[in-house]
């Protein structure tokens, strides 16, 4: 997923302010409320769940069995793939920002997106999403090239040409949905390019509104912002759609609301899986990035 659609200046200013403001909090456990997002016992599901765990007389024997299985390399397999989060100097701030973002999503972004979804019919929202994705083509094209994935770059170029023309300025994803041999998308960003050349993730940073990230990916977002036609950069006005910071933020806001409206309920659903919100989102983010880089 490319996240280059926000003016970097904005991110940096916010980051600096928040870092200074919450420096003092780093040792405190911020907001104990988020530590235990309990899912309430749901009478709807408790039935099928309990009926499917019969009191199996085999259970006792099986427990002995596990110990053997355990030595079959599961431990090595999983510890080898573990994300490296031993160094987390911003954990206090990150925790706070995770709960800030969480509140923002639950009480602002989601209700707004729901309202938006009732006004705009789904095909239109899909069109907006396609068009914005289409405009991010330079990021994907350049980063595929930088990683030497020439076939992918060619695919992206083909998609851009077809979707921009036959697909009515990107509103319709013709290349994926209406071709006998669909051209697949190849999402790459500069954070992945850095990772591809062996740059480590650096420590984890939760960005306001943008969510989980890390030092490497912040550098990536910055570089991609120059390529994205949707983020204003002084001196490149002719290439950029927004003419100032306000317009960049506006486009980003619409993009985010539109995207959320196509995935309503998913965030709430995902956060239910967390034992503790911050490490949960940190780990899923780092795992996802690692696998995207490995692809």
């Amino acid at each position, binding site marked *: 997923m490319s996240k280059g659609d926000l003016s970097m200046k904005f991110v940096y200013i916010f980051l600096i302010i928040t870092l200074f403001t919450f420096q003092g909090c780093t040792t405190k456990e911020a907001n104990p409320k988020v530590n*235990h997002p*309990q*899912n309430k016992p*749901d009478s*709807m*599901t408790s*039935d*099928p*769940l*309990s*009926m*499917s*765990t019969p009191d199996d*007389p085999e*259970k006792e024997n*099986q*427990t002995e*069995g*596990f110990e*053997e*299985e*355990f030595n*079959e390399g*599961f*431990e090595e397999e*999983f*510890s080898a*793939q*573990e*994300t490296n*989060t031993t160094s987390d100097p911003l954990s206090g701030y990150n925790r706070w920002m995770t709960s800030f973002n969480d509140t923002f999503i639950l009480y602002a972004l989601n209700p707004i997106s729901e309202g938006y979804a009732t006004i705009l019919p*789904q095909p239109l929202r*899909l069109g907006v*999403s*396609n068009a914005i*994705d289409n405009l991010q083509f330079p990021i994907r094209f350049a980063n595929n090239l930088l990683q030497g994935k020439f076939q992918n770059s060619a695919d992206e170029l083909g998609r851009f040409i077809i979707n921009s023309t036959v697909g009515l300025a990107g509103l319709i994803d013709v290349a994926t949905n209406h071709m006998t041999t669909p051209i697949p998308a190849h999402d790459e960003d500069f954070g992945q390019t850095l990772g591809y050349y062996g740059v480590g993730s650096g420590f984890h940073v939760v960005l306001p509104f943008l969510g989980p990230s890390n030092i490497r990916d912040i550098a990536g977002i910055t570089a991609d912002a120059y390529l994205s036609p949707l983020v204003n950069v002084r001196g490149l006005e002719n290439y950029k759609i927004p003419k100032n910071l306000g317009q960049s933020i506006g486009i980003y806001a619409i993009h985010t609301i539109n*995207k959320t409206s*196509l995935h309503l*309920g*998913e965030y709430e*659903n995902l956060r*239910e*899986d*967390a*034992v*503790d919100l911050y*490490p*949960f989102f940190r*780990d*899923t983010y780092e*795992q*996802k990035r*690692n*696998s*995207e880089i490995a692809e």
Partner: protein
Amino acid sequence: MLQKVIIVLFLSIVSLDALEEQNIQKVTDIKVRQVLNILKDKTLSQKQKDAKNVRIIDDIFDFDIMSQISLGKQWKTLTKNEKTRFSKAFEKKIKHSYLDKLRLYNNEKVIIKDLKKIKSNRITLETQVIGLDDTYKVIYLFYKKKQTNQWYIYDVELVGVSIIQTYRKQFSEFLRTKTIKQLIESL
């Protein structure tokens, strides 16, 4: 006596459904279709759907091994009673989370892709879920159980995120400051 007959019957049903290497792809495909049909069936209540879906995955998911991996080295320090209680709680949590995810189902298409043999006792099966504006990669990880020579799922990777790894990480952090008893309660 009757109890014994029931157990024998139960076991024979299980082994019919259990996975041999050559039919992993076929059985998974059938099971995915079954789940999708249940989700699309408008005559069923949510509760009936949940019950049916749990039954479908029950015999190919190895919840015991999942709970064991999720605790990692800590597992060995548990008493027998704690192990059983933890496994039960964890199984419930995973099933709950799985059913929750299925509720988001919105006519996505599922394609079964390649089966890869990683080593003699590990197989991965890649599937693709085609949603509205995105395609997601879902990989099922199978291992071969020594005692039975059957294959079971021990982990699922959604868009590169391993479910069991995520729990593992969270549990190890949780147990750094809290006890296993508190963990079982929080599940």
